């Protein structure tokens, strides 16, 4: 760690990530690109390779946009830095959603708002369809993956099973398959 990263204050960390959380419209990879530009290229807080490792680990649990912020913050100032970066990144969105939620639950009887939401509902479903297709093309490789996707779909749509149980079953299956493949190699 060079001198420069040692000296970054928590205030600077929270302000930087709040700015990212305030301006990074587009979510997901758009945020990752923004964090990379600011923290790797502009400020030189973290090397490009370390950042990519953080991104890879960030796929494990939760949203990777938040995870790269936590990882970068931790790299700068340890646990306190990681928490500071995460809080800075989430706070603007949290305040915005709280305000929108309040407006929504207070004024949702307004006919104009009802009409507007009638327009947004189908678009949200369209977005979910696109996500399913794009993820499917990237993540489903080969017959067993396709079978697992179809089984998960059928378990929730036809059998009405809880998505959490389906996910846990898939995780268990996948863990066994990983160990099995490792033993074979």
């Amino acid at each position, binding site marked *: 760690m060079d001198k420069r990263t040692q000296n970054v204050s928590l205030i600077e960390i929270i302000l930087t990530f709040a700015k990212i959380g305030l301006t990074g419209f587009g979510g997901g990879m758009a945020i990752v690109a923004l964090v990379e530009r600011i923290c790797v290229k502009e400020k030189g807080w973290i090397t490009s390779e370390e950042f990519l490792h953080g991104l890879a680990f960030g796929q494990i649990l939760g949203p990777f946009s938040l995870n790269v912020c936590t990882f970068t913050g931790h790299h700068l100032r340890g646990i306190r830095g990681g928490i500071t970066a995460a809080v800075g990144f989430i706070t603007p969105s949290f305040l915005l959603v709280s305000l929108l*939620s309040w407006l929504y639950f207070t004024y949702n009887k307004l006919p104009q708002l009802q009409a507007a939401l009638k327009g947004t509902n189908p678009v*949200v479903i369209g977005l979910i369809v696109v996500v399913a297709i794009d993820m499917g093309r990237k993540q489903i490789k080969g017959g067993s993956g396709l079978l697992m*996707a179809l089984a998960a779909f059928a378990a929730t749509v036809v059998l009405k099973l809880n998505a959490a149980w389906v996910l846990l079953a898939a995780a268990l299956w996948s863990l066994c398959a990983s160990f099995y493949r490792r033993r074979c190699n």
Partner: protein
Amino acid sequence: MASLFSLAWIYFRIGLIFVGGGYVLIPLLNHIMVDQYHWLTLRQFLDGLALSQLTPGPLAMLATFTGFRAGGFLGGLVATVFIFLPCVILMLVVGRNYDRLKNIDIIKSTLDGLLPAVVGLVAAAAWNLGASSLTGIKEFIILVIGFVIFKWTKVSPMVVIIGAGLVGILVN
């Protein structure tokens, strides 16, 4: 109104099984909020999804909206903190040990193997939400237009959702 403690526990558990980039939250939260606890109607759930797409935060900001509904501002705060707690803790642990993590290939291949199930769950969520909330041909046309824009252009979801809101006001 739900107690803050039970909200914390519910969102913490969701945070623990929150894999695959966030979209898995749609089927999970839909089941818990709409079917299990009846804190939200299906319409409100979809409206909340639209609102959470208006911010730079991850899709998981849906937790703030659903928590707000279940317990006011504090409910939204508790939901947000606890749904992100597991992944923040995990990333801090990873950051601390990241060049020493040993069985990482097993973790990686388990996760890769699990992702097709996430795809199936997301597709099922689209199916369930569509089957129970699309009522007319007009809405179906808006869905197709939204699909085409998201699939083949790079327009931000925020812009599309605001546009869809305006279209909704004009046609209804």
